[in-house]
């Protein structure tokens, strides 16, 4: 067994185990962390497949951004897990049936008959200076330019919609206008009043009362 194969088994078993723990753990923060571990080991498996761009982007997008937001929300919400677990036995047969059907379907499609080494021989290893990123960019912006742009526009629409959902003007709520705060000048806040100095009534000594 080569070293890479050993690494593959280590990473993929960590991925599967942590995915399993993510579903079964009771603590929602732990579940989010197991999901992070799953993403991490999946990214490592992708690296073994010489897909370094996709592997690193998986880390960047899911571990670096999406899961941080997830953790943020999960920590803020005080989720009570007990009501979520009610009826576990009642739904177990349905869940088990769905899971079994999915496993059978996937083993039919992904079995060695269709994806075995004799059908898809292992691709030759690329040279060290082969740039995964440049190849992906080339394909995305030439062959698949329309699907790529359409996906980008759909994401943009989703983003605009999400921002619109949060934009509601409620009357009576006071906002700070940071631009106005930064623009403020001394003359707006302070009025210099020039007054003649006065002597205190009954003062005997010059300079007293300082």
């Amino acid at each position, binding site marked *: 067994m080569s*070293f890479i194969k050993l690494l593959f088994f280590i990473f993929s078993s960590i991925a599967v185990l942590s995915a399993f723990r993510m579903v079964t753990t009771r603590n929602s*923060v732990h579940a989010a*962390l197991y999901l*992070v571990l799953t993403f991490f080991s999946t990214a490592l498996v992708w690296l073994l497949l010489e897909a*370094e*761009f996709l592997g*690193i*982007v998986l*880390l*960047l997008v899911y*571990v*670096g*951004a999406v899961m*941080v*937001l997830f*953790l*943020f929300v999960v*920590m*803020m919400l005080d989720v009570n897990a007990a009501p979520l677990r009610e009826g576990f036995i009642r739904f177990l047969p349905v869940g088990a049936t769905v899971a079994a059907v999915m496993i059978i379907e996937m083993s039919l499609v992904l079995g060695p008959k269709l994806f075995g080494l004799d059908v898809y021989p292992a691709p030759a290893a690329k040279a060290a*200076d082969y*740039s*995964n*990123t440049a190849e992906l960019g080339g394909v995305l912006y030439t062959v698949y330019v329309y699907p790529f742009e359409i996906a980008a526009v759909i994401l943009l629409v989703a983003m605009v919609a999400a921002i619109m959902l949060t934009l509601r003007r409620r009357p009576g709520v006071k906002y*700070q206008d*940071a631009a106005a705060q930064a623009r403020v000048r001394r003359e707006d806040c302070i009025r210099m009043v020039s007054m003649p100095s006065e002597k205190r009534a009954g003062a005997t000594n010059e300079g007293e009362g300082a």
Partner: protein
Amino acid sequence: MTEFLAPFLNLFPEAMRDVVLILIQSLIVILPLTGAVAYLTLAERKVIGYMQVRIGPNRVGPRGAFQPLADMVKLVFKEIIVPSQANKFIFFASPIIILMAALVSWVVVPFDDGWVIADINAGLLYVLALGAAGVYGVILAGWASNSKYALLGGMRSAAHKIAYELAMGFALVGVLMASQSLNLQEIVRGQDGGIFNWYWLPLLPMFLVYFISGVAETNRAPFDIAEGESEIVAGFHVEYSGMGFAMFMLAEYASMILISALTAIMFLGGWLSPFQGTFLESAFAWIPGILWMFAKISILLFLFLWFRATFPRYRYDQIMRLGWKVFIPLTILWIVVEGVAVYFKLGPWFA
């Protein structure tokens, strides 16, 4: 670079040589880095001291030179206190996570031409992705401590890191467009030819945004709201003592040095001499590239200390506004400007 190790490596069986070599290379980077972190803390106290007309540490050793060692001994021997009801595993794991995230990025940093542990093609992305992983240490430390102040610090940190990471990523897109490579060595080679060929000039807004976002990413003043000692005591690491606290400090200073090194590589020509192309070039040709690199890193680190001595802490909403409403639009605008410049092959940079 590693030929001189050949006699030593031959002691090991064939299959282990690569692993041993990588371990040695990692030690060559990590040990001096730890020393640099120790003396950066001293430099920080001295520099800020002088800026505030104080002397700074001056008791341990000549002019306080052994102060970091004394601090280290103190931190190692302090009692480690675990708060009641804390989530123990995560409580102890989070300093390790944050330290690991601060150290593993160094694997792609080139100190001189060819002096890099892993010369990977997607180096820029790797740095960005692992920088993002560091935020987990802060959030989890805040959550696992089971303390209100710590949780507030963790939450603040999560929100502001997301904002500044985006600005940082866009700034890196600018570097990528100029150098047409994600490999950090290629990026430095693309800036060959003197101080005006470095990317700080064509990418000036991105240079500033990247460095300021770097200050924010490392939780340094004036963006240190995750600690905010006047508001939330010490934020995410309020419950840590002894070595746990030392690891947070180690990670913070190591990532300060990392941000400075990356800024030097991407905008200030890395190991290249600033006198290239001038009459002084031959006079300074004897200086090895790694010294130029260290000089640039030191100047940027001095800026970190200077900021801390000078600026008051930002208010939380001001940080958010600066990140989302100023930096991100600015970098997007400059990507468009740069696109035009690349299209017309402007100047020495995009030719």
